């Protein structure tokens, strides 16, 4: 296995140019929305709105302006699949279509996926959607085909400010920590890393430098694995089954004696 690879996205240097979105669409031959007809969101410079089956990169525009417009800032963040070390989508996929690659990334094999959509609800980040052309679930592959050919992913290659950095997780973590230190020294004390260590889902292979709370960026503060509910859910179902079974046996038991009158719960 090759060394784990991933992205470090430094949101403080993103300028919202969307070159990553375009490069991703071009390389992965993703269709345009709405048949290519321009649709504007009407309240933001962000017109693609979300990650989904045809948007595997998405630049979020978070506009923080007070009523009087005296102060304010744009938070810009190029969002993408997190390629979680403990991946909820891969965990639930019933067809085996979702795999972990030799680069420790998470890829949906479109020829195996049957479009059951279990992974969509299982992803803690809302990354996956059905691609309307293939009718299968799709998301960022971290350019698996390019990686296999020794190239870097299209988005990071196109990023003009190095907001998106591609490399080995080891390198990226070291760089990102240095960057946080640098920002703290410069007085930006709000800077911190999201998903850079094992605490979050075993580590996100695509992690972020943020300057506000995760939920401001539309990221879950405490993402969890779907399987956390497997044992409690099964026990509750079993308990329900036992209650129904007892109710059944009580009511259908072949009793010679007259039955007690119906119990009021």
């Amino acid at each position: 296995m090759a060394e784990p690879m991933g992205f470090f996205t430094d949101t403080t240097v993103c300028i919202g140019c969307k070159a990553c979105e375009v490069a991703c669409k071009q390389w992965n031959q993703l269709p345009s929305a709405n048949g290519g007809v321009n649709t504007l969101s009407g309240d933001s410079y962000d017109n693609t709105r979300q990650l989904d089956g045809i948007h595997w990169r998405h630049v979020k525009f978070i506009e923080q302006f007070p009523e009087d417009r005296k102060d304010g800032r744009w938070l810009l963040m190029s969002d993408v699949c997190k390629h979680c070390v403990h991946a909820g989508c891969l965990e639930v996929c019933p067809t085996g279509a979702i795999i972990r690659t030799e680069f420790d990334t998470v890829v949906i094999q479109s020829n195996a996926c049957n479009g059951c959509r279990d992974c969509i609800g299982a992803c803690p980040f809302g990354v996956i959607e059905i691609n309307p052309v293939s009718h299968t679930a799709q998301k960022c592959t971290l350019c698996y085909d390019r990686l296999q050919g020794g190239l870097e992913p299209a988005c990071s290659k196109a990023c003009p400010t190095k907001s998106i950095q591609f490399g080995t997780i080891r390198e990226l973590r070291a760089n990102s920590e240095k960057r946080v230190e640098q920002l703290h020294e410069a007085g930006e004390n709000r800077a911190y890393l999201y998903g850079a260590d094992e605490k979050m889902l075993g580590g996100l292979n695509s992690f972020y430098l943020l300057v506000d709370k995760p939920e401001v960026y539309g990221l879950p503060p405490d993402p969890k694995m779907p399987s956390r509910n497997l044992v409690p859910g099964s026990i509750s179902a079993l308990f329900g089954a036992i209650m129904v079974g007892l109710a059944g046996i009580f009511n259908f038991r072949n009793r010679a004696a007259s039955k007690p009158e119906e119990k009021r719960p």
Partner: protein
Amino acid sequence: MNGVPSSTWFTASPHWGWYIASYFFLGGLAGGSYFLAALMDLFGRREDRPLAHIGYYVAFPCVAISGLLLTLDLGKPMRFWHMLIESNTYRPMLKYWSPMSIGSWGLLAFGFFTFASFLGALAEDGRIPWSGLRILRAPAAPGLIVELLGGLAGFYVASYTGVLLAVTNRPIWSDTPLLGMLFVVSAASTSAALMTLVAHRSDLTLPGLADLHRMETWVIALELAVLTAVVISLGRVVSAWLNGWGVLLLIVVAVGMIAPLVLASRRRTSPDASMSTAAVLVLVGGFLLRVVIVFS
């Protein structure tokens, strides 16, 4: 997490809709009816065998339609078999920790059991010429095995769907572990209601009918308690139901649970009509309960 009750708020909907809500209802009916029928065969009176037949006649068609609904819901319906066979290696595909994976096998197995019992019931009723197939009914040994295993598989099919919803990251679904319990109890109430209704319509006067109706009442009360527990266990997440679906849920409680209980308590004054009315209300309520949960 100011303003956001749960990290599940940041996830995307799998767009499970009418096919899935209908499957949850029919799968519950199939599992519940089969289980009740097996229970009557194993614990009940000999005179009640026609009542058990209703359960077997209900279960198999419901499973068959369930399979069809699940296949139609797929983005690629012709790849339905990918749930069972790994399409790149042709090896069996099973993940015991994924409810959808193990549920696919469970539904397949349950399909076989319901088909066997369906044939057994037909043979015993003389509706098919192969009377030898009567061995597929208890107390014959093969029938005993089929009904025991089928009853367990029925329970599994009726309940795993609730666990499947919990094993995601969606609001409500994954914010309580109790949906599996709710679904299995609701499967029992809707199945008892359907069997009561069919028996009533076919003018079967059987001693077991009263037992079935009484069981239906017990289980509706249980269902109301479990639904209350679900709402309590959601905590702040319950705010996700502050919309039309929450209103529909209240209607489900009123029409599908409280009204049948009130009717049952008045049964002594007007017995027959109220039994059918209560059964219809329970069935409508059981379906709408799944609609609320799947769509919200």
